[in-house]
């Protein structure tokens, strides 16, 4: 059998041909690339659900200064505070339950689709949001071996009928959306992320590892071959559904190819200390940094929690994140500090790898006060390192006309204004982003100098 023009290579080529036109939503953005000089290359969008204790502007401090032992204390401790802008007066997307909409719509400023209609019956397959910021940035470098990486903690399988019939549970499980109907699942196992990036564990010889990768790819070729025969029998609706599966198969096959080419990249060692939650995120963050250092990928997201599921990061914390947000702010601050510390370590890691100058890292939430599900003035941080004084870092940046207005939802800014400004740093000039009342206004967010 000829290895020169294998069926696999042909199919892979077809896959690319089919895949590219599907990115139509990126087209206007990509056309605009030439208008700006990119200052940044990479993006990491990070998220924690259920908010943080943020009393109000009257106190002149919302617990994040670090000086009062608030949730931002780890940033000061890690020495990364000068790279961080504390964004104030920005609101989360809040249609349906803000746990759902504020998570799914975090990086797109787009309300989630719901089935709130006279007929309450919903289709469990119905999901609608919009392409997220990480994916727009991934579009700027379509030839990246790995389009994007997505780390998470757990996955909520369902909530209750009242919610499940109105909005998909996937809304709380993904901040990354490939397009309006395709949420991207997070990898929760560090070993799987390692394999995803580097193809195999480093215990195998290169020759053996290469063979095993080829063997796996051969199986995926076979799956596509089976699908090609099957699809001829399907209705157009089912064909459309399965085409998404076939596309996933093609992408994973592509990942295996890129993994085979990643043998020269530095492979981070697995974290062995600490409790599983911290250990796993540290390892996955190191993998993301290593993948970026080797220019395998430009975009990533990290969900430190989903906000409603069992999220107790360490055994020393006496309550779950969701319960703490409702009932116990002391434990909530402890949990916030664990997550902010992880985020701070990510910043420090990027700085140490000399990647922070070309990377923007965001950390945000879907609400401020969890007791009232308040969508105003949500926790929102932006980190990077200035190359030519392009960003306001190491300070608080207000989206509202006055500091006192941060708690006034009506005067809060949409995050879409911030996303539009950040995209400019990547050479992407978009005229508008987001939908409905969360659409960008065209006014500067304040992050750019």
């Amino acid at each position, binding site marked *: *059998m000829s*290895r020169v023009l294998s*069926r*696999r290579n042909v199919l892979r080529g077809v896959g690319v041909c089919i895949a590219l036109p599907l990115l139509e939503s990126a087209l206007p953005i990509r056309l605009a690339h030439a208008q700006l000089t990119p200052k940044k290359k990479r993006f990491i969008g990070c998220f924690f659900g259920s908010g943080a204790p943020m009393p109000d502007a009257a106190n002149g401090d919302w617990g994040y200064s670090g000086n009062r032992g608030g949730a931002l204390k780890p940033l000061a401790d890690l020495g990364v505070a000068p790279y961080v802008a504390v964004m104030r007066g920005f609101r989360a997307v809040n249609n349906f339950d*803000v746990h759902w909409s504020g998570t799914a719509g975090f990086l797109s400023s787009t309300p989630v689709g719901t089935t709130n209609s006279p*007929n*309450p*019956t919903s289709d*469990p397959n119905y999901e609608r949001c919009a392409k997220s910021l990480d994916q727009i940035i991934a579009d700027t470098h379509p030839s990246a071996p790995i389009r994007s990486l*997505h780390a998470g903690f757990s*996955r*909520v*399988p*369902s909530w*209750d*009928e*009242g919610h*499940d019939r*109105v909005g998909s549970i*996937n809304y709380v499980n993904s901040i990354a959306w490939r397009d309006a*109907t*395709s*949420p991207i*699942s*997070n*990898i*929760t*196992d560090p070993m*799987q992320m390692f394999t*995803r990036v580097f193809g195999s564990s480093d215990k195998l010889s290169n*020759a053996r590892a290469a063979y*095993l990768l080829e*063997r*796996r790819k*051969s*199986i995926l070729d*076979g*799956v596509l*071959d*089976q*699908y*090609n*025969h*099957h699809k001829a*029998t399907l*209705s157009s*609706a*089912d*064909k459309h*559904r*399965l085409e*998404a*599966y*076939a596309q*996933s*198969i093609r992408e*994973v096959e592509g990942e295996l190819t890129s993994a085979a080419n990643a043998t020269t990249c530095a492979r981070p060692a697995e974290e062995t200390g600490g409790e599983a939650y911290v250990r796993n995120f540290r390892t996955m963050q190191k993998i993301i940094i290593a993948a970026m250092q080797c220019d395998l990928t430009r975009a990533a997201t990290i969900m430190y929690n989903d906000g409603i599921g069992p999220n107790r990061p360490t055994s020393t914390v006496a309550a779950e994140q969701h319960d703490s947000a409702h009932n116990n702010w002391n434990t909530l601050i402890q949990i916030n500090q664990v997550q902010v510390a992880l985020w701070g370590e990510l910043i420090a890691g990027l700085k140490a790898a000399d990647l922070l100058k070309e990377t923007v890292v965001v950390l945000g939430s879907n609400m401020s006060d969890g*007791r*009232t599900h308040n*969508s105003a003035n949500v926790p929102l941080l932006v980190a990077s390192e200035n190359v030519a004084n392009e960003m306001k870092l190491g300070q608080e940046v207000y989206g509202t006309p006055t500091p006192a207005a941060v708690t006034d939802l009506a005067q809060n800014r949409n995050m879409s204004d911030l996303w539009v400004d950040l995209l400019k740093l990547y050479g992407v000039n978009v005229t508008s982003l987001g939908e409905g009342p969360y659409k960008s206004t065209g006014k500067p967010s304040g992050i750019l100098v």
Partner: protein
Amino acid sequence: MGWSGNVALVLCLATAVAVGCDGPSDSLLKDDPGTFEDDPEAAKLAETLAAGPAMTRNLSNREYLNAVSDLIGERLPRELQAGWTATTQFSGFDAVPWMNLDTKVVRDLSETLEAILDRAVASPKVMTCQVTSADQLAWEGCAKSIVEPFATRAYGRPLAPAEAESLARRYADGVALAQEALTDPKEIFTDGVRAALGSVLLAPQFVTRIEVPPTPDFTGERDLDAYELASRISFMFTASIPDDELWSKAVDGTLTNPDVLRAQVERLLDTKTDVFVQSFMGQWFDFREYESTEPGTLEHTMWNESWRVMADIVKEGLPAKAILQPGFTYLNQELAAHYNLVGQFPSELTRVETAERGGILQQGSWLSLSATPLKTSPIHRGRLVQDRLLCKVIPPPDSSLFEEIQKVTASIPATASVKERLETHRNAGPACAGCHEYMDPIGLGLEGFDMHGRLRNAYADTGRPVETESHLLGKPFRTFRELNAMIAELPEYERCAAEKLTIYSTRRIVDATASKADADLLTYLSHPIDGRPPSVRQMILRLVTSKAFRRVHHGGAK
């Protein structure tokens, strides 16, 4: 009535002697072989039913693992799926959205497949022959005799010629690849087979279940064929692919005969009762949560209690109201002590006749799973009862009310009782009362059980007495037994059981308020027999032999 009918009559008479049924198969009394009703009214209802939508769905994680286990003849451990995207639930039952078939899922499958294939190529059930030399590597021969039957059972139907050809190519490709890296013909053969089997186990023909139309653009109704029926009922009763006997009825085509279909369902109800109730009722009442707990733990014993009670309800032909009031439960020393029951109990779980326990709302599993580890929530329990037993979905509170809720909560004196707290919330306005009126009174009626399912007269933390007197739709009740009886007498109770059964079995949304076809189906399934509610078993038989199950429409309801 032909030969098969006579055989069925003999079989039924034999069964009647064995299990005490009332007489010959009802289907023998009817011209229409699709109905078995001797009640003219029920038969009339059955005739008016509409075809259901063609099934198009993904396998859940459990179904995938079960099906692969059955294919290779080895029970695969759940740990293989530890990192997989969790199966989503909808309407209380496993339902995997199409969007979940993303790269993460493919990655999960692809990586786990390596471990599965290691077992498959070591399985005597799969590897029915072997090669010892390079000249035996051709597809025709050993490879084909392994791969094609495997794929046929995996897909649940005969292979299309193009599918078979594709598998042959995959084998050849796998062999070619292996020949570049390996020298042992046996290993090369194994890796060739591995490539073909792997393609099957990841193919959409296996990971999804789609009842395909006769032609892609076909719209209209049709009967399910024998293979499709076999797949439907095997996943319904065993959460896996058809076993050998069911498969043989698909292969010879006899499963489309309603008598054969009914006999197979009866067989599965008798022989796979445990698997069926653990899956169906375990999801319906959430006790599946405890299935994977360590054997010997209290939670595992509670799980055993739950499914055993449910299995007896199905096996013994008890009505749906027995779910609330079976009159018996399963206890051992440990569980009885936990429930604080007086008497001698064996070390093994044993059926015990009692009115105090056994009903789903008095089972330790439900009572524990409906509470947090630290406290009970009458609101949550009430909402669960509405959803699981009465099919009433309570919407989440609008976030605009959250501030108001906080104010009301802050206004309640610390000394207020649970009942007073709930009343204060309910009285805060119609926006609150509109929903809480349905939840709180039921939840209060169950406050006599703590978060571990033990009876209590007072709250452990405050020492205050537990108040369980409440009302349901304006009718007062004093005890949980009265509450059980009142719920079971509600007209929506039987219909809700029928709805849950239909959702689970047909993997689709049932909405009797919007769809006349769905309303008709629920009316039929819950229609009394001799003036009494049908048994759960009769509901199942009615559903599976009904037009709504055996006949499907493509391209929109007719």
